[in-house]
């Protein structure tokens, strides 16, 4: 086992322990917030696979969250499906939607792709308004069961853990290499036999599926309620911002990005001069600062810190002759 792998596993184990103990120290409401951090974790993870590892921009993943959320809501309201059972269903449905979107999207690049996904993000809520009679419109849909906060925390972070491991396995294998090849040079990838359409569409599907699960969990955390206003465009923007803060192309910062998105509104509410509604200013400033000064995000910062520490430990004199970047 390599040192890096060992270090990674150690961090994961420590995180797992912390996460299992955390809910017992929090109040009920904070547990819900902590669960939300978990669901954003999943969404950002998915977007990172698409944007960070495969190089495709999407400003529209809120739409997939909406699809997942509505799936859970409708299944629960109409068929009284067990909530946990709706999760794989949401995963599957949004995967298919992601593939459907991904196929034509694989032909677009750069700003055109960004615009197309933005169009997606804004249309989906509008469609929800249009078909409001079935989808509950302004009155919304209520889940048929009540959701306990401990339970929610467990389910959210449980899914997060499962999907994190799944992503890690996926990304270190052949598929992950193919994704990175598409990101780094489409021409080189194509000439090496990597099917651009296949991998881009696959990345879209997977990231959409993750967003779908996150959306389902969100509805559960939102007092079991969803209406046409729930999944606004700010979801799409926030996930992208969270992914940027986390550090695109690396799995390690995702928790920080998720925490940033989920917790900031709550924290800034308590800081008097920022107050309510002004967290968007802070979010904007932070993300711009991150892009300008820390392009590799929190993940990059952590990596640099770890590398610096390791180097200093190797040479007690303090001056490291070779720094691994």
């Amino acid at each position, binding site marked *: 086992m390599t040192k890096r792998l060992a270090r990674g596993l150690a961090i994961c184990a420590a995180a797992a322990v912390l996460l299992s103990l955390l809910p017992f120290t929090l109040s009920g409401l904070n547990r819900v917030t902590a669960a939300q951090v978990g669901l954003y974790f999943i969404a950002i993870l998915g977007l990172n696979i698409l944007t960070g590892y495969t190089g495709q921009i999407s400003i529209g993943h809120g739409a997939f969250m909406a699809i997942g959320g509505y799936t859970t809501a409708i299944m629960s309201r109409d068929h009284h499906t067990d909530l946990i059972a709706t999760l794989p269903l949401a995963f599957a449905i949004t995967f298919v939607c992601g593939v459907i979107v991904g196929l034509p999207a694989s032909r677009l690049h750069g700003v055109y792709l960004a615009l197309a996904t933005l169009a997606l993000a804004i249309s989906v809520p*509008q469609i929800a308004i249009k078909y409001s009679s079935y989808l509950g419109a302004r009155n919304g849909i209520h889940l048929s069961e009540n959701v306990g906060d401990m339970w929610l925390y467990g389910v959210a972070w449980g899914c997060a853990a499962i999907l994190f491991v799944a992503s890690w396995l996926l990304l270190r294998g052949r598929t992950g290499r193919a994704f990175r090849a598409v990101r780094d040079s489409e021409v080189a990838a194509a000439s090496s036999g990597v099917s651009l359409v296949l991998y881009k569409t696959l990345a879209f599907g997977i990231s959409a599926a993750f967003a779908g699960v996150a959306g389902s969990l969100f509805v559960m955390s939102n007092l079991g309620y969803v209406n046409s206003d729930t999944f606004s465009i700010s979801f799409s923007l926030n996930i992208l911002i969270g992914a940027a803060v986390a550090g695109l192309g690396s799995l390690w910062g995702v928790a920080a990005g998720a925490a940033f998105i989920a917790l900031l509104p709550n924290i800034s509410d308590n800081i008097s001069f920022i107050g309510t509604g*002004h967290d*968007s200013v802070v979010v904007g400033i932070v993300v711009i600062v991150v892009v300008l000064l820390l392009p590799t995000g929190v993940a990059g910062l952590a990596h640099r810190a770890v590398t610096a520490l390791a180097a200093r430990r190797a040479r007690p004199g303090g001056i490291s002759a070779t720094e691994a970047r």
Partner: protein
Amino acid sequence: MSVYELLGRLAIRDVGTRRISTGASAPVLGLLVAACIFLTVGSLWSSQFAQLTVSGVAQGSVFASLALALVLIYRATEVINFAQGEMAMLTTYIAYQLTLWGLSYWAAFFATLGIAFVGGVTVQQVLIRPVQQKSIIAIVIVSIGLLSIIDGVVIWIWGGDPKFMPAPFGASVYRVGGVAVSLTDLGTIGVAIGTVLVLWLFFQFTKLGLAMRASALRPAAARLVGVRVNLMLALGWGFATVLGAVAGLLTEPSQFVLTPTMMQPILIYAFAAAVLGGLESPMGSVVAGIALGIFLNLLGQYGGYLQDSALRLPVAFAVLLVVLLVKPSGLFGRAAVRKV
């Protein structure tokens, strides 16, 4: 090496060659002529059709203004400014504040244009210049960050409830051969198209305008003849912000209600128009903006199943998506060749 640099390499490769755009091709011109004929015939046949067309032109000229701002910035700096709508909204709030402080509407209007210009230059220098060389993703995120900041600042200073601004044109309505044409519509068309025209004259006939065009097209060659390219780009942003301010100020002139979200749908229509016209074609975006305005208006009356006003936005998207998939370079652009 950071991921942004990796992505940056990808982005550079994805940008096609600069195109020689001499305007529309024959089929597109034919389409435009046919559309004009259709509109004229329809207007003669039904006064309601004529009215819808005129107000469609008015709304469309607002879209055209904002679309032109997007295109100017894109042509010059290859950046899609997702915050353009919010910047327009902010300048409109500034105008509102100026009227509260006692300025007349038109004094506030022109003062706002000046402020918008300075604001645009500042944003370019402070936020965009540092990321211009980075990947598209970095630039997209910065403009989204800016969007977020502006939203927050506006709510912070003015609050989220609707504000009322004096109507610039009054409510009078003229009758032209049985068709009721409101002064507001005429005023909107006049101001928007007038601004576009003034800018066009500037770019075509002045030395500075020529230098700005050169900087957008071939920055390296422009530097060699002594053009201060970075300054030109900053000025480009200034002008684009002015166009956005005009769009913001004209958005609902009959009953001026200011809310923080007022420009969001307009931005989408502007995107649709810009893509439809061709992101690299200023004339295309203006024509497409007006066309979109007319189209959406007519659809609202005669569109059958699609008449629901809640569907205006999705229809605009459908247009955007179809164009992106079928001919991303738009009606007036040439197909970009991908450099290998």
